[in-house]
């Protein structure tokens, strides 16, 4: 059987390269190990975030329509590690496919850049692509240092899960991917709840409270680690634990790992290559849970 290496248009967005190079490094290592080819997209920058959608819907359509049109030039699916970028690109794609008037308006703008949106490439989140194109069985075959059943709580992030008719993501995908590493998935009551990142600019205390609710819910359910697949959620659950010390005087010490870090370690990749030391809450205790 000849298996083709899947190639993707890698859209990093702005937050991962600036704030989470460990996420970026880990996903590149994972891609190499699993036989996925990630090609950085040319001429792109930020998706604008939900903030841009809030103040300038049309500008948001053009910015993301442009990214989609650039990807269409080589025809490979767009892949992103950020829920914010995923939500923007996926939603704009959905809207432009269903609203012909806006598609005409956006294409009129894109013509100036020699581009046209046709809707021919798919928008993929990193974990969905790993799940669909590689799959848990293949991952299990490649794992050399499985985890020992340690309990990990999953925070999916809102814009990966919802609106479900737009994102087309199923929580079981990430659940199965975490289990494939040998870890146990810890269920907790607030699994669907928001990390609070979006409202940091307008109501910081409320955003901090939401992060606290989440972390407490995970801890109380017995999670030893948490995992995230978005830099904004990472900020809220990992970095914000330092803020919680300040604002609530509470210490949770719940290490938060980016999913590809867990997968890379289980695939036998070293902790320095995935930037484990950059995680804000010390996460090196995960190394003690690797077998083999």
């Amino acid at each position: 059987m000849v298996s083709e290496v899947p190639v993707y248009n890698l859209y990093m967005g702005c937050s991962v390269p600036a704030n989470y190079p460990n996420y970026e490094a880990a996903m590149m290592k994972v891609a190499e190990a699993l036989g996925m080819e990630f090609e950085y997209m040319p001429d792109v920058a930020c998706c604008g975030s939900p903030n841009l959608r809030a103040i300038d819907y049309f500008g948001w359509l053009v910015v993301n329509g442009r990214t989609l049109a650039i990807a269409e030039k080589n025809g490979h699916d767009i892949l992103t590690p950020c829920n914010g970028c995923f939500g923007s690109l996926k939603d704009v794609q959905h809207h432009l496919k269903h609203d012909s008037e806006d598609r005409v308006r956006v294409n009129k703008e894109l013509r100036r850049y020699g581009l046209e949106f046709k809707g021919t490439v798919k928008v993929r989140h990193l974990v969905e692509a790993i799940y669909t194109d590689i799959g848990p069985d293949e991952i299990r075959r490649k794992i050399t240092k499985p985890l020992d059943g340690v309990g990990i709580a999953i925070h999916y992030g809102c814009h990966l899960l919802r609106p479900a008719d737009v994102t087309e993501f199923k929580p079981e995908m990430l659940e199965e991917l975490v289990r494939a590493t040998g870890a146990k998935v810890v269920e907790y009551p607030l699994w669907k709840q928001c990390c609070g990142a979006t409202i940091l600019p307008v109501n910081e205390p409320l955003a901090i409270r939401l992060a606290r609710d989440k972390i407490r819910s995970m801890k109380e359910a017995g999670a030893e680690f948490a995992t995230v697949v978005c830099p904004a959620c990472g900020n809220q659950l990992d970095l914000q634990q330092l803020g919680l010390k300040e604002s609530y005087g509470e210490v949770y010490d719940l290490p938060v790992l980016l999913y590809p870090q867990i997968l890379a370690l289980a695939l036998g990749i070293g902790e320095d290559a995935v930037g484990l030391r950059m995680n804000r809450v010390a996460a090196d205790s995960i190394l003690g849970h690797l077998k083999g």
Partner: protein
Amino acid sequence: MTLVDPIDMSLLDAKFRDDIKSMPDGEEISACFACSTCTAACPIANQWKYKPHQLIRMILLGMREEVLSGKEIWECLTCFQCQERCPQKVRITDIFFDCKNLAAESGKVPEKVVAIAKELIDKGQLYVVTSDWEREDLGLEAAVPGLSTDGIKAILKETRTGRLVKGGE
């Protein structure tokens, strides 16, 4: 004692509902039967004077000023839990995005959100790589391959983002 102040009918703006209906994902708003499932699903509704189901009702009634000048639409987490659970398929979170766009059209945007708009116009991104040595330590290129901010800056200068930033200066 009345629990709720009576609404002054003369202040209602019937066009508000039509504006929302004509905006992206706004059509289904009339299907709301005020069951308040959205409010039950919202993680922060308890912080708000007007709850999600009330805001939808206020749009239908035409209470433009109260909805567009309130803090609620800007504090929406955009977590889509309300929208996901609505039995009538009203796209509530999307409608709050429409409300923010209407508010922005008349320049009513919180200062810190205008600051974000300014970042997008000036830098073309919300986060800029500063510790490139960290990237190099991990075997990544110091500068993100393919990054070019010209496109986004050029686009947003000419749309509402550009007007908001200019207006704020």
